[in-house]
């Protein structure tokens, strides 16, 4: 099993963690992410134009599992380590299982899941990117409210 973190555009750029104006900026930010956030998984930096990110739909916190050989096994528009690990356990168990005299067939499912939202912790991360990152998100919340 291999795990990779693909570094994309900055979702909420600010004064400290800026949007990317060059590939060097992006690479520097990715190194800062490793050093300050402590990401242990290998980090792969997408190109400046977001070629890989675009191919997978541009959402900010996705997780995908690619099976040996290159077939997509799992996709989620939000990263939940517990959900990914539970899927991997079920998948590996399903692959190993061979009932006596029977066969195993695969199928595709899709579910809605829930996650806890710690808004204050998220706001702290925005402020870490820079004060304007928080201000812009609060403005975006008002824009979303006007759409509803």
């Amino acid at each position, binding site marked *: 099993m291999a795990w990779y973190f693909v570094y994309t555009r900055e979702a909420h750029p600010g004064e400290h963690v800026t949007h990317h104006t060059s590939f060097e900026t992006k690479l520097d*930010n990715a190194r800062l992410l490793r050093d300050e956030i402590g990401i242990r998984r290998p980090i792969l930096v997408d190109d400046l134009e977001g070629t*890989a990110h675009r191919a997978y739909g541009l959402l900010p916190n996705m997780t995908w599992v690619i099976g040996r050989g290159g077939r997509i096994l799992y996709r989620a528009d939000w990263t939940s380590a517990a959900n990914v690990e539970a899927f991997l356990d079920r998948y590996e168990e399903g692959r190993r299982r061979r009932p006596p005299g029977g066969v195993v067939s695969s199928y595709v499912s899709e579910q809605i899941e829930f996650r806890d939202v710690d808004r204050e912790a998220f706001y702290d991360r925005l402020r870490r990117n820079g004060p304007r990152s928080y201000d812009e998100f609060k403005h*975006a919340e008002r824009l979303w409210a006007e759409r509803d």
Partner: protein
Amino acid sequence: MSAYNYETFDGYVASGDEQREFAAWPDLLHAGDAAPEIAGTVLDGDQLALSSVWQRRTTVVEFGSFT
């Protein structure tokens, strides 16, 4: 600079790009489809194509940034 690397988050939301991208995602790739290549740069500067990894092992790929 392309709109991909937007400078302000509220500008990105106001442009409608965020709404369009979230709306398009459900109809994009699905389980069972062939995975598009993910090629990039590792932090020491070397190039890596993840297809070379998932040819040999199941591979978990998380996309993200600081937030």
